[in-house]
């Protein structure tokens, strides 16, 4: 049951978004998040939403997947929405004791909710269309300039690769140990919180012991295969910008220009 959890929610498909360079995708995700926060009125926000909707459409991933990604944050959206409704200024449309709802409050509520939802959708486009290994690779490449400042970028990337490799393995092992302890009469499902946490100790200790044993083996295997840090290391898969990556950059710049215009021409929507 534990092994069913997928990592990084990668959703393999053949689409324009999958084919795009992962470095570009990371930059564009950050770019669109900035856009969403820089949007001052509904027109520019709408433009940013359209831009991200286009990316979602191009990813060829069913809308259902995106909706599922939104589920965990629905509470957060509802919470901020309610807060914003009651914090509006101006003439109340509706008043009940100290609570009042204004037109401005309603607009703010709508604006903030759209922001959060689109934010999640934008980052989902990245994680759905990029495999964890590609993501690690791209982060390593993007952060490489930092290694001049003696930041161990390669080592972090290697740690992430190994973590990604071993998480499913350790999950499977946790499952096995839990079954083994249950077979010996361990009770993990009843009792209060303290008792349940205590019941996890016989699972965690063997898990740690085995993780260390694995680490020792892995170190031997890596050294045997001539691993000696990032120095002088090459990569089989070299990230290269293709012509269609340049097209994406071009369209993103055009979108940015339109966004700035919209943001300046129309008045800000949120008034405090």
């Amino acid at each position, binding site marked *: 049951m534990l092994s069913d959890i997928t990592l990084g929610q990668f959703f393999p498909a053949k689409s324009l978004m999958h084919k795009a360079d992962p470095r570009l995708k990371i930059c564009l995700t950050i770019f669109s998040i900035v856009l969403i926060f820089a949007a001052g009125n509904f027109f520019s926000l709408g433009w940013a939403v359209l831009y991200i909707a286009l990316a979602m459409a191009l990813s060829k991933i069913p809308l259902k997947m995106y909706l599922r990604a939104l589920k965990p944050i629905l509470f957060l959206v509802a919470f901020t929405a309610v807060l914003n409704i009651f914090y509006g200024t101006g003439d109340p449309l509706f008043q009940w004791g100290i609570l009042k709802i204004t037109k401005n409050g309603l607009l703010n509520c709508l604006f903030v909710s759209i922001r959060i939802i689109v934010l999640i959708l934008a980052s989902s486009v990245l994680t759905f269309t990029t495999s964890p290994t590609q993501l690690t690779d791209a982060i390593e490449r993007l952060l490489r300039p930092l290694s001049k400042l003696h930041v161990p970028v390669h080592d972090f990337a290697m740690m992430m690769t190994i973590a990604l490799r071993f998480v499913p393995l350790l999950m499977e092992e946790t499952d096995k140990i839990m079954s083994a302890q249950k077979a010996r009469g361990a009770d993990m499902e009843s009792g209060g919180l303290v008792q349940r946490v205590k019941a996890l100790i016989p699972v965690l200790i063997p898990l740690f012991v085995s993780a260390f044993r694995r680490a020792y083996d892995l170190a031997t*295997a890596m050294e045997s295969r001539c691993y000696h840090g990032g120095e002088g290391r*090459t990569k089989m898969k070299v990230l290269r910008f293709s012509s269609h990556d340049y097209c994406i950059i071009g369209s993103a710049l055009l979108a940015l220009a339109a966004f700035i215009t919209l943001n300046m021409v129309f008045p800000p929507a949120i008034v405090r």
Partner: protein
Amino acid sequence: MAFIEIKDVRFSYAMEAGAEKEVLHGINLDIGQGAFVALLGHNGCGKSTMAKLLNGMLSPSSGQVLIDGLDAGLEENQLPVRRQVGLVLQNPDNQLVAGIVEEDVAFGPENLGVPPEEIRRRVDEALKAVDMYHYREHAPHKLSGGQKQRVAIAGVIAMETKCIVLDEPTAMLDPRGRQEVMETITRLNREKGITIVLITHYMDEAVQAGRVVVMDKGQVLMDGTPQHVFKQVERLKRHDLDVPQATELCYRLRAAGVALPDIPLSVEECVGMFRNLLR
């Protein structure tokens, strides 16, 4: 000069309170290029220590391990020695580094600084050599034990090592996985001329090698062809070592007074012999 020369090698592990425990008491072995050697012995007889001495993961306390003339015990020879001698470990899960099969196979050549196009070529070739090319984009944890072990072997082949040392590669596999790995090893030895040092405690696997070295209590007990070694059933039994099942059967039949012309090593040989006898 042989490809691998082990000269009077002793090895001690440091114990608590400064004490030392010697596990290898003066080993002498020569292994030629292209040989297929099985190293047999009990747990704790020093087999795994031998494996780590061969690629410089450990340095002998005294004596020398020479790989193609290079002293494997010296720090500065570590990388050149590991380029020649690859190591495959027992647990297939613990030795794969990357989350995708082909990237794991690429790990070794990447460490050596091989250019990308050349890595691609080597990876494809190595995966084809172990018959795992179709799985190149799979995640290792979705593969069977035998398949994972073959990927680990491909990872060594991609480094173009001349020798592969396998430390009980089949101990954690089911019979089918064991057969897959054994077929892969024998094929690599035969077709690519890669020197194989197979450490095992399965007698049936040792029979497939060209030469069997039996170790006991940190020393070489016997050294010779499988025929030579396994026919000394009594001597092996005195040291609590097994013989292949077919050999055991015929040995007992002989002891019970059945006149057999020969002591076979494999089931096929055994069946052939009985067919001739009963005809």
